[in-house]
């Protein structure tokens, strides 16, 4: 059919032939206009309204699935209807049902947004989508008879296609509202992410960007973000977090006990004011700890680490570096094992994991000279247990040759710290224990240059006086006892 003819037929159909058709179209037009201006009539003001509205509104997420399913069924029935005409007949009925359910969902959606006090661009988009979808469904319903009579071939299929696109878009907005803007990509397999180019650049280095913002992102911004702004609070950027909501600020830097955000997330679950609300999963203890430490230590947007917070990613020890082949020395190691005195044992059944030097059997007589005898084993020893032995500062000359050393125990020895400066070339060292020695703050200073050295123990040394005595009663916890209504 040529375009000119199409237009002629369309015009022929367009001009109402009967009074009934004219009434139908006028009503549809008026109804569409009403729907379009509805957002301006019922303005979302961000405040919760009547409880009954919220009660009914909560059924919106349930009800929306009805028009979704019905609308998806319509094209299917139309296509399969080529083979079985009865199914095509059913399509008209299903479409009608879809329109009614669309309308119902729209009403419930309005009640949810208005009654629950939701505002934001995603809410607006979702609403616009819902209205468009309802109108489009209605037009489909009106255009379908032409198509059935073979009067106009393309209008109805085109309208139906548009309706389905509107459906997808609206549903996506709805998904964003309930699960957050990253709900599609959050758990996407890494391979797929890379392929689709969605893999995010690593977050900026600050503790806020790396640890706090992601917590808010996946747990809070669905309701406190650009899409939905419950209680006037948005948590999707640092400035907005610090600005607070309609009840005032939620983060008081340095004062976790005055920070409403922390209070609300640490209430007992089930409390009326507990966050995240609406039965969403509570934050993990670890996440709460991070938020608390971050507030306590100034709620800074730029600080990169928080004292007292061991991040597991930072805890990961560097992988074991395989030591060389010491099989030629095995007979000697075996002899030591049979005798009393210092021993070398394999760290594990894999020889390349290295050797552990045990001296506890003969600690009192194990001095610098004895240590020197282990020089030939130096590159294979990964753990030197020299606690409470007679070694002195002179031992560092031998120890600096232990190139694969990961752990060095010198607790309770005569070490004073002179010579610790010889250790930095030991790049594998992650642990040093100097407890109960006479090392001073100045003598341990060279250790700070060792980037893999993350466990330094200075208990009971001049470098670190013993900790203050524990109080007799436990320190006041962050939250008062949450036991309520005890029998």
């Amino acid at each position, binding site marked *: 059919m040529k375009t000119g003819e199409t237009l002629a037929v369309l015009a022929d159909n367009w001009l109402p032939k009967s009074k009934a058709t004219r009434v139908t179209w006028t009503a549809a037009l008026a109804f569409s206009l009403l729907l379009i201006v509805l957002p301006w009539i019922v303005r979302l003001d961000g405040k919760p309204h009547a409880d009954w509205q919220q009660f009914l509104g909560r059924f919106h997420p349930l009800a929306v699935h009805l028009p979704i399913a019905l609308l998806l069924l319509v094209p299917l029935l139309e296509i399969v209807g080529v083979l079985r005409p009865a199914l095509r007949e059913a399509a008209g009925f299903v479409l009608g049902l879809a329109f009614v359910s669309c309308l119902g969902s729209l009403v419930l959606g309005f009640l949810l947004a208005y009654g629950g006090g939701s505002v934001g661009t995603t809410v607006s988009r979702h609403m616009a989508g819902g209205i468009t979808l309802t109108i489009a469904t209605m037009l489909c319903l009106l255009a379908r008879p032409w198509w059935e009579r073979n009067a106009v071939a393309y209008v109805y299929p085109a309208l139906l296609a548009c309706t389905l696109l509107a459906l997808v878009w609206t549903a996506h907005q709805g998904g964003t509202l309930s699960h957050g803007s990253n709900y599609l990509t959050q758990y996407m397999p890494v391979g797929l992410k890379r392929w689709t180019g969605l893999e995010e650049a690593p977050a900026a280095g600050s503790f806020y960007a790396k640890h706090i913002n992601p917590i808010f992102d996946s747990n809070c911004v669905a309701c406190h973000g650009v899409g939905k702004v419950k209680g006037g609070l948005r948590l999707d950027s640092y400035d907005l977090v610090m600005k607070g909501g309609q009840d005032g600020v939620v983060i008081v830097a340095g004062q976790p006990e005055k920070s409403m955000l922390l209070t609300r997330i640490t209430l007992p679950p*089930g409390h009326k004011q507990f966050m995240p609300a609406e039965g969403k999963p509570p934050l993990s203890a670890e996440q709460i700890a991070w938020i608390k430490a971050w507030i306590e230590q100034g709620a800074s947007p730029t600080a990169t680490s928080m004292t007292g917070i061991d991040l597991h990613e930072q805890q990961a020890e560097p992988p074991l570096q395989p030591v060389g082949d010491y099989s030629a020395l095995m007979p000697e190691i075996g002899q030591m094992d049979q005798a009393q005195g210092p021993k070398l044992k394999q760290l*594990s059944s894999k020889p390349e994991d290295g050797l552990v030097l045990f001296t*506890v059997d003969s600690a009192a007589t194990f001095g610098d000279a004895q240590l020197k005898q282990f020089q030939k084993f130096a590159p294979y020893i990964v753990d030197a247990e020299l606690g409470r032995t007679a070694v002195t500062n002179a031992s560092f000359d031998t120890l600096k040759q232990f190139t694969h050393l990961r752990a060095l125990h010198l607790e309770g020895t005569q070490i004073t710290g002179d010579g610790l400066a010889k250790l930095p070339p030991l790049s594998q060292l992650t642990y040093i224990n100097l407890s109960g020695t006479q090392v001073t703050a100045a003598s341990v200073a060279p250790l700070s240059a060792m980037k893999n050295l993350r466990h330094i123990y200075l208990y009971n040394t001049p470098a670190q006086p013993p900790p203050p005595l524990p109080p007799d009663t436990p320190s006041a916890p962050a*939250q008062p006892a949450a*036991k309520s209504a005890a029998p």
Partner: protein
Amino acid sequence: MKQHPLCTDTEQASHVMDMAIPAEMKREWATLQTRRHFLGRSGKVLGWAAMASLLGGRALKGDTHGPAYGQQGAPGADQLKLPQFAPKAKRAIYLFMSGGPSQVDLWDYKPGLAALYDKDIPDSVRGAQQLTGMTAGQARFPIAPSHWAFKRYGQTGTFVSDLLPYTGRIADDLAIIKSTNTEAINHEPAIMLMNTGNMNAGKPCLGSWLAYGLGSMNDNLPTFMVLQTKLNTHENNQPVSSRLWSSGFLSSEYAGVGLRSAGDPVLYLTDPDGVDREVRRNMLDAVNEINRQTYRELGDPETNARISQYEMAYRMQTSVPELADLSKEPKSTWDLYGPDAKEPGTFAYNCLMARRLAERGVRFTQIYKRGWDMHDNVTVTLPIICGEVDRACYALVTDLKQRGLLDDTLVVWAGEFGRTVYSQGGLTPDNYGRDHHPRCYTTWMTGGGVRTGITYGETDEYSYNVVKDPVTVRDFNATLLHCLGIDHNKLSYNFQGLDQKLTGPTPASVVQGLLA
């Protein structure tokens, strides 16, 4: 070949004719003893004999561990190739809370129970569970909410009962497992299961497996030591006995060595008057020579175990007095552990001793604390026992941490089961009792290899059933072994035709969520 005490093979088999069976059956049996039977059986014997010589003598004895006889000690780490991978923890301290601590009153915070006071626990929650004889006859099972409030502790905001104010302070350092569960409902099988991986006596315990698999770090002290806590007469003390630290079918060298809670830590360790060190040495050399003769004659590896134990005792004559001498402990130690630690045999003293043993390279220390079995009078008894345990646990973990020992020491706190949320006997606003509860109980661990600052697993609102991440005793033990560098499937010993394991034949899995 080593004979286990429980094995009865050596007893004279009673003859059929002497058995208390009908005479008719005896006659029938006698007629079956025909020439044909005799020849048939003789043939089989010849076949077996031929097969045995083909396989070699060792296979016949069920010995697969190489030429260990005659050497000092039995097969150990070298033959087993342990640890299989670089361990996070070199040693472990196991605080065993015998009797079954109440998870509802200590760890498993259930604020919702307050509203259910004296209501019956729904049948759907209990299911078809078989109860103990102590409460099975009860007409109703009224819910007894915890008498104590809970507070949040640490940066993790972990809820801990007011009964454990000190332990609460180390909540950030613990991995608290709320979903531990067991199959046994009474003390004896449950405690055996927890300690040896099997409800029946006769299997080696965790400490023995470690001593066998990993060997010693200090030849002057036993590899596996056991510290018992003095009894408190206020408490219902279920017995704890040496079968819990038995080496089972492993060599007796690997059994736990107990330190006494009063007087000399080890009996007869000091030389009597007039016997000096040299005389003792000469005497031991002579005794050892006689023992070696015995070994050559009989070939019983237990003789070698005896020789090495004599030698160990000789070395312990100097190492134990140094170990037990607390006079050099600084004041800060006593401030940390509290005044109880000065009295030998208290739990606090034992915790301090465990730290000293860890410093001295003892592979495994197990402390037993009895008295958690509170069937009644919980509100009076529980604070007493918590008072004994709470500060000491805190002190031990804190002390290990500040001294840099927690990095390579695994610390475990566990009982054999939990206690019921419903009251045993009468429930009053002031008091209640709690029966044994195997379906969920709370344990914790910390130290080398453990992911700390977490709570693992969840129970339902009644603290009755596990609803998330259950941890069986097998999984629990497999996880402990993993922290020490051992694959629980590969630490095995061939006995009675099976590769025996701590985790038993049922598949067990390491709980990855508990690992750092």
